[in-house]
């Protein structure tokens, strides 16, 4: 099977690759989401800590 044939998908290229592309996007977003959320949360909590320390002499 040639590379061209592979990408052509027997004429169903649009349908097949849209499905796989969409799946890739959805799966990636679900991993990136919690990664960023965790970073943001930890930064948030660290900031609250600093503020609390400043306010207690």
């Amino acid at each position, binding site marked *: *099977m040639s590379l061209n044939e*592979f990408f052509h*998908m*027997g*004429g*169903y290229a649009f*349908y*097949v690759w*849209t*499905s*796989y592309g*969409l*799946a890739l996007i*959805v*799966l990636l*977003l*679900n*991993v990136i*989401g*919690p*990664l960023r*959320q*965790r970073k943001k*949360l*930890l*930064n*948030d*909590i*660290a900031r*609250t*800590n600093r503020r609390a320390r400043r306010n207690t002499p």
Partner: protein
Amino acid sequence: MFNNFFHKMASPRYFYNISGQLIPWLAAACMALFLAGLYYGLVKAPPDYQQGDSYRIMFIHVPAAWMSMFIYVVMAVAGAIGLIWHIKLAEVMAISSASIGASFTFLALVTGSIWGKPMWGTWWVWDARLTSELILLFLYLGVIALYNAIDDKRTAARAVAILALVGVVNIPIIHYSVEWWNTLHQGPTVTKLDKPSIHLSMLIPLLLMAFAFKLYYAFVVLMRARCEVLERERHTGWVRELAETK
């Protein structure tokens, strides 16, 4: 001993640490299964005699649809455990499952639609299978919206658990819809009691992808649950310390 184990596992701090160690391994195994599944599914498996290459959408569509139901049941069971035994971690697992389940339901619906266009000649029909799967998406979205609408997280978790449990009635409806009603959607080919009517060269990538999706859910739900634990425990000593060292 068992009691001790569950007690430890239910401690948020212990869970946070253990899951942090588990995630990379699960993710690596998931990647390996995905690569194998894609190779066998897109390269090795022959075209279908009726559907040509379009049937390869199945390797995304079917595992996504299976996961959409599996995750819903996990969410409802975790919700019930939280409801009955007041285990915080069960509540966390239930709500962390919701958005992943919604993603898989969305994927199942959209890839089904994309597959339907060339095979059935239409993007959408209101047949029982498609409609009940759409209701599943709404149930997930309802769970997420309800959880975010209530400020107190423990009250929110209880409300969500009840909604999730009521919605379980939809799961057998989805599964049996192709038998109970005359649907455009085809009947089961893999989960039949007699021999599955799918060739091994197509069954292998399907199962590889299904396991990859399972592992994907496992590590992503843990990632989400860790965030939820941090959020809920943000005023405790160990979380504040953790934030300092990061």
